[in-house]
């Protein structure tokens, strides 16, 4: 098979976004625009305590003084922050004891997403906190978790039920003024998930949240906080989809992780927000701040992400390795197709002694997309014997897509060992022909080769998630081959 760029372009661009449908549930939506009144409205709707309103207002004031960052290798028209509605809650909201009580329309949405909660509940014991347009609708498995003292609930609920924990940890890893989008999120976040694992507890199931942007013209600003107390362990899964929309939707989330002494947090994301159409019209702007703090000695935080969606991705899940012997990991597969742009990577900040970090990044670019890895490895003076290994690979599917690597390394301690490897390769015509000769279709061939390429990262995902991620990779890279 001659694998000419244009042919491949055809073959990979004819895939329509599979999750492009909207759910017809009445929503309660704030007027467009952002000002103090809107923030007061959000806070009031959510029946928040005064301290949190003040916290939001301070973030808002900080945000007003900031400008949108422009250093990322992406091009787009900046969102009009006054044209967005900052709050949309599904109406007729009730408390549910079980998933069976949920609005059938919403259930269908979840099924279309392939979540099938019953299946997941039955097969994998995943507790799902489903966030649809900002308000958490259903939380399962809560009782079982409660027996172990594990708290897993929506952020709104946590503010009411566990104010001491929220007050203690919120914004401690990512200060409100950290960056433009984090400040915006701090001012207007509507919901998200909170998770607390008490001392010595190993969370017996994967905790999972599905995010979905549903209402047209709404931004989604969810806020996630995971705290693993001494000697505890938790694996957290986050999946995202957004229905098809012509206009760009803004998504600016903040995720904070805190691992105390001897604790471990595994955080996995599969992101397939609507990427826009072939010509780059529409799609989600995904401007996310994610950071984990290895607070205590011997703590560990791993980020694993499979990013296939969004028109623009701006995302750097990072680790601050403060505790001695703490470990940070970042495993990433980022796929861009058509006109998608991704600038993603990580920061590993070594502060404690004997800290180590691993970065494995696999970029896949198709169509005329642009895919950049941007990473910082910073070894501070105090970080004796710090270790880092980084490997950044890029796979090109066409001749007119872009792959870029921006590794930054700052070493202030001579005992540090930092290794960086990078490769760029084009998908092999010979590999594809070999597969065809064994009877595989071109689609299947590409899917196999790409999944093989990304295997090191996919292997880090929990089982069911890995299978879903493999399918997603195939979906986002293949089309009607003809």
């Amino acid at each position, binding site marked *: 098979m001659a694998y000419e760029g244009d042919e491949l372009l055809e073959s990979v661009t004819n895939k329509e976004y599979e999750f492009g449908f909207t759910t017809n549930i009445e929503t309660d939506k704030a007027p467009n625009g952002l000002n103090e009144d809107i923030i007061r409205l959000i806070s009031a709707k959510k029946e928040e305590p005064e301290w949190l309103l003040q916290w939001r207002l301070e973030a808002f004031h900080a945000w007003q003084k900031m400008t949108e960052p422009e250093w990322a290798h992406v091009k787009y028209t900046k969102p009009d922050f006054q044209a967005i509605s900052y709050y949309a809650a599904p109406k007729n909201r009730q408390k549910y004891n079980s998933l069976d009580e949920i609005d059938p329309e919403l259930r269908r949405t979840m099924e279309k997403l392939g979540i099938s909660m019953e299946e997941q509940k039955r097969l994998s014991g995943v507790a799902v906190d489903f966030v649809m347009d900002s308000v958490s609708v259903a939380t399962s498995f809560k009782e079982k978790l409660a027996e172990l003292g594990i708290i897993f609930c929506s952020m709104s609920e946590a503010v009411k039920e566990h104010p001491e924990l929220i007050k203690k940890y919120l914004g401690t890893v990512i200060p409100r003024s950290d960056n433009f989008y984090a400040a915006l999120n701090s001012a207007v976040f509507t919901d998200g998930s909170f998770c607390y694992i008490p001392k010595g507890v190993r969370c017996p199931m994967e905790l999972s949240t599905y995010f979905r942007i549903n209402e047209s013209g709404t931004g989604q600003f969810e806020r996630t906080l995971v705290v693993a107390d001494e000697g505890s362990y938790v694996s957290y899964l986050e999946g995202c989809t957004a229905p098809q929309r012509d206009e760009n939707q803004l998504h600016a989330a903040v995720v904070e992780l805190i691992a105390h002494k001897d604790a471990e947090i595994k955080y996995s994301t599969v992101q397939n927000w609507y990427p826009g159409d072939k010509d780059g019209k529409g799609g989600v702007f995904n401007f996310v701040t994610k950071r984990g703090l290895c607070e205590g000695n011997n703590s560990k935080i791993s980020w694993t992400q499979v990013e296939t969606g969004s028109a623009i991705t701006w995302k750097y899940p990072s680790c601050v390795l403060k505790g001695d012997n703490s470990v940070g990991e970042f495993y990433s597969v980022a796929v861009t197709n058509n006109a998608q742009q991704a600038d993603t990577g990580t920061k590993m900040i070594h502060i404690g002694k004997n800290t180590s970090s691993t970065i494995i990044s696999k970029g896949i670019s198709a169509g005329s997309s642009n895919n950049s890895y941007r990473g910082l490895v910073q070894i501070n003076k105090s970080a004796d014997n710090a270790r880092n290994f980084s490997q950044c690979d890029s796979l090109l599917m066409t001749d007119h897509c872009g792959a870029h690597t921006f590794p930054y390394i700052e070493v202030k301690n001579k005992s540090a060992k930092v290794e960086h490897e990078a490769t760029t390769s084009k998908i092999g015509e010979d590999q594809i022909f070999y597969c065809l000769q064994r*009877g595989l279709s071109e689609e299947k061939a590409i899917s*196999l080769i790409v999944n093989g390429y990304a295997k090191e990262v996919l292997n880090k995902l929990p089982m069911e998630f890995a299978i879903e991620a493999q399918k997603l990779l195939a979906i986002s890279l293949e089309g009607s081959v003809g």
Partner: protein
Amino acid sequence: MLEIKNLHARVEEKEILRGLNFEVKPGEVHAIMGPNGSGKSTLASVLAGKEEYEITGGEVSFKGKDLLAMSAEERAREGLFLAFQYPVEIPGVSNINFLKAALSEVREHRGLPQLTAKEFLALVNEKSKLVELDGQLTNRSVNEGFSGGEKKRNEVFQMAMLDPTLAILDETDSGLDIDALRIVANGVNAMRSPERSFVVITHYQRLLDFIVPDYVHVLYKGRIVKSGTKELALELEERGYDWIKEEVEAANA
């Protein structure tokens, strides 16, 4: 089974196959020999459907169908198998998953029921024994880090799994030690049947002691210039290709 008439093919303006005629009947084993660069691998690639090569003339029928009208994957599903001279590595894709996917496509095309996981593994067991392929290799990534000989054995293993009606072996003997050569030849011989045909491309008469061909052909400058029986291979071994080249030049003069 396979009928090639006056086949012309070129790549980048260079004509490589120049009026090639060749016929294989069911159950036959044909050996193709010929000097380096004469077009043997090109013939194999053209038959397998590699689009890099442009067909500028001629016809090929396979089991009565127009082979040149079929896509590469259709040809494979119809039962044409090529053991590559240089098998490709596919990192991160396990041999077993690769074969599972391939076999499932092939069986679907042939109207055969899909195998259960258990049946599939039993088949893998049986066929890997045929070429004494280390069980570990079936679990490793396709050809990645395989030795030259292991890659060749893996090709024959894949052939056995996919059960083709026409198998083209492109220098499957090169890079094999004496024992491996015997093992691979035994594997091929075990697969010989009145319905299955083989085209064996080789430089060495030695292989033909193990896989005894019905016919031997010499390919030179994109044409079959001499055909005979297994004795022809012995003669080539002794005399080299010069006398054949001279014959061809004399005929052209």
